[in-house]
């Protein structure tokens, strides 16, 4: 069956996060905080699938007419996003993905309509174009896409990743993606040809224990002292966590440092250790996508205050 009809493409992925860089062999584009989608477009219909191959059009009906802005049958790779105050707002996208009441959906898109930013093309006029270098595929986009309020081409710059990173940081965007100009498109592959540069904040917390959750990941229990010098649990972190990382820094078992604590029956308690957590800046929640970066031996737990 033709790939257009079977509609089960896994998009190419980014293998690593790096610090801002410049590279003459790369182009850089903005990373938009939305949902990665593959758009299947022919003369009279649009289908939009997320990475798990679920159709998103029932949730985002305002994008049903994307094909009206495309000149040929094609498969496009891009990001569905919703702008609020001029910036992509992931919380609005997330809220939309769980709305099922058609009237609430209608109210939502009349107020903040979604749009689709295209950064790649996979298929054009019944043929795969994945063997063309990225820079050639970008040229094809110019021939295919007629930009509108709901459909646009991702703008890119050559070489200057650091300057773009600064723009993203000042503007409050998620980050920047650097891609080799010659990179080919590999389905589902985590490629080193594409790198992300994310804008992250850091903060120190006191790790007071850990637990194993259902999917056998380890979760650290993070706390801070309040103004009355009482320990308060503030967050959990699972990404980047391994017990061996804690052991390297002399982890020792202890008892629960907080009296009358509920909901932590399965936790293992340790002597307080200071950990640095990396997270995405967020106006709505304290820390988003927290990741354990390192354990600090040079800072006392008492210095971590709310």
């Amino acid at each position, binding site marked *: 069956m033709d790939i257009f009809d079977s509609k089960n493409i896994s998009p190419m992925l980014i293998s690593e996060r790096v610090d801002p860089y410049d590279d003459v062999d790369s182009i850089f584009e*903005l990373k938009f905080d939305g949902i990665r989608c593959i758009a299947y477009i022919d003369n009279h219909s649009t289908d939009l699938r997320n990475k798990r191959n*679920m159709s998103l059009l029932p949730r985002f009906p305002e994008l049903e007419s994307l094909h009206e802005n495309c000149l040929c049958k094609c498969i496009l790779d891009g990001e569905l996003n919703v702008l609020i*105050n001029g910036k992509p707002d992931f919380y609005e996208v997330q809220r939309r993905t769980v709305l099922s009441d058609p009237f609430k959906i209608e109210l939502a898109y009349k107020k903040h309509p979604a749009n689709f930013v295209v950064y790649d093309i996979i298929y054009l006029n019944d043929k795969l174009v994945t063997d063309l270098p990225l820079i050639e595929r970008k040229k094809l986009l110019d021939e295919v896409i007629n930009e509108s309020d709901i459909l646009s081409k*991702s703008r890119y710059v050559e070489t200057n990743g650091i*300057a773009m990173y600064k723009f993203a940081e000042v503007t409050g965007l998620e980050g920047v993606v650097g891609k080799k100009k010659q990179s080919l498109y590999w389905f589902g592959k985590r490629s080193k040809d594409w790198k992300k540069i994310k804008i992250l904040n850091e903060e120190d917390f006191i790790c007071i224990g850990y637990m194993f959750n259902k999917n056998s990941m380890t979760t650290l229990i993070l706390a801070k002292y309040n103004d009355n010098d009482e320990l308060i649990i503030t967050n959990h972190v699972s990404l980047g966590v391994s017990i061996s990382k804690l052991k390297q820094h002399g982890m020792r078992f202890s008892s629960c440092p907080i009296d009358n604590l509920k909901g932590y029956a399965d936790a293992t308690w340790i002597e307080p250790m200071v950990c640095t957590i990396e997270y995405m800046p967020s106006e709505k929640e304290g820390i988003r996508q927290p990741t354990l970066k390192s354990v600090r031996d040079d800072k006392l737990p008492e210095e971590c205050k709310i």
Partner: protein
Amino acid sequence: MAVAHKSAISVGLLYIPVGLYKSTKEISVSFNQLCKDTHERVKYKKICPSCNKEVTNDDIIKGYEYEKGKYVTFTEDELDKIKTKKDKTIHIEHFAKMSDVDQIYYEKNYYVVPEPGAEKAYELLRQAMLSQEKVGIAKTVIGTTENLMVLYPTENGIIAKILFYQSEIQAVPVAITKPEVSKPEVDMAKIMIDSMTSTFDPAIYHDEYQVKLRQAIEIKIAGKEIVNVDNESPNNIIDLMEAMKKTVEMAKGNKGLA
């Protein structure tokens, strides 16, 4: 759309992992009950009229009124023992002709969608049933209810039609008599039907009350939001990307001068 029931069709040697998805959605606008003065959501409290105090879930047991004012009671444990063992598999008991299942038994429909890897076995079953115009009569447990269903093949896939049990179907309350009618009378009725026949298009029918209700709500929301919460930033992604290009170009220019 979230899967309503993760299951598998079991028939003979075939075992086909599938998910059931709802085929309909709720479109009625639902209102909340608010206190007239404060606009707070009204809460329900369960009160026992004898003790005159609020009862929590822990204080409530189930009772069956077998005679006025007389109850036999059950605890949740006692009821759990009786409940059907949770067999989520869809067991096809036998196949039947499509025309064997009277429409009056149809309750609601689910889309049956194969899990990854099960597409071929699913397609096999669908094609075979469709070409023989047969449906699968099957049993499964959804939640805690034991369901009888037919697996119904269509051009696009398999539909699970939940059936009412025979004991749930009511007889017609008044017997309908069939008076004698003459051929000219029947012919006249046929002409009327012919003249009024056109293709059924479900898209042209709407719940008019819901349409008006939505319009009324939108007008009220618009009235409340005269002050837009958005600041004056342009809500256009192209503008944002063009601003980026300009900024990067300028930074490059400055570097050249330095």
